[in-house]
């Protein structure tokens, strides 16, 4: 029982590392881009949110796995 809970925690814990780094990079680069040319803020925001949705999906896969583990 404890091992199952550990497995659940590890699945989402380790699985969130990569997407976390990725989201940080996306957000940071978006801020840099806005700083460089603020007039395209709207377009950058759209692209950033799309990229974040794809990156976040990786963490969501890990979450699904951790919920499936019984």
């Amino acid at each position, binding site marked *: *029982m404890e091992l199952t809970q550990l497995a659940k925690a590890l699945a989402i814990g380790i699985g969130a590392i990569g997407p976390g780094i990725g989201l940080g990079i996306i957000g940071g680069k978006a801020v840099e881009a806005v700083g460089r040319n603020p007039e395209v803020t709207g377009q950058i925001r759209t692209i950033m*949110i*799309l990229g974040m*949705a*794809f990156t*976040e*999906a990786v963490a*969501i*896969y890990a*979450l*699904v796995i951790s*919920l*499936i583990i*019984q």
Partner: protein
Amino acid sequence: MHISLKPELLFNLGSFPVTNSILTSWIGTLLLIVIAIVVGGNFKRIPAGIQHVFEMVYEMFEGMATEVMGAAGKKFVPLLATLFLFIITSNWLGVLPGVGSLGIYETHAAAPAKDTHAAPAKDAQAKPAAKDAHAAPAAKDAHAAPAKDSHAKDDHGPVFVPLFRGANADLNTTFALAIIVMVIIHVMGIKSAGLSHHLAHFKNPLEIVSEFSKILSFGFRLFGNVFAGEVLLTAMASIFVIITGNNLLAYGALGGFIVFPFLMLEFFVGFIQAFVFAMLTLSFLSLFYKTENSEPHH
């Protein structure tokens, strides 16, 4: 707080099992049909009211499709808009209060229906059988309920069956959508480029694997986001249960206060996921759909 990965069976329509998620998707479909009749029925040259919203959706996808695929993309705007509207309707219906919390207590001899998500979620249809088969590990499943304090009776007493469940919080719906989309993509690819040209994409066997992984990622992305949103809302609503205890008024007030920003987040996520689904469909379509002037681009 109980989390069930698969939808609950409500009743059988002949031999067709009706689950709570399919009921919600029917309501969403009905809603869309009614809106379509109302909006399409008195279509005006100068848009007014709700017609604005649908023209906006159509123009958004028209712009995107022509940007990615040129003039040929216009053909796929109805598909993209349908996917978008269906997914966003289901997602937004799923976060409404009452979905997941409104339900009935069912009494069964073998009760642990809600905790038997050991079976793959796709087996939801085989639920009546699973219910009986899982009678034995009932005691083992008890630990799956995180908040045992108030739900201890669930192990053998009546089982809570929510009447509604977000349609996309069910792997069956999302995989159905994913499979529909991938079939359309390949059929359109074959129709536009011819079978031999289409098969030329798959000289590398890894490409075939990647096609199946597209289905998986389509299905899991949507399911995961919507389902995780529901879990998040449930967790946030009950985060103060230690302070409030059994005081339902305090529980409701604090829970509602905390859950409100997350509800807004879920509305946003519902929109983003519907948009991402339609956009991915478009970009995968453009990989295989051959237009007259698509050669210089790729």
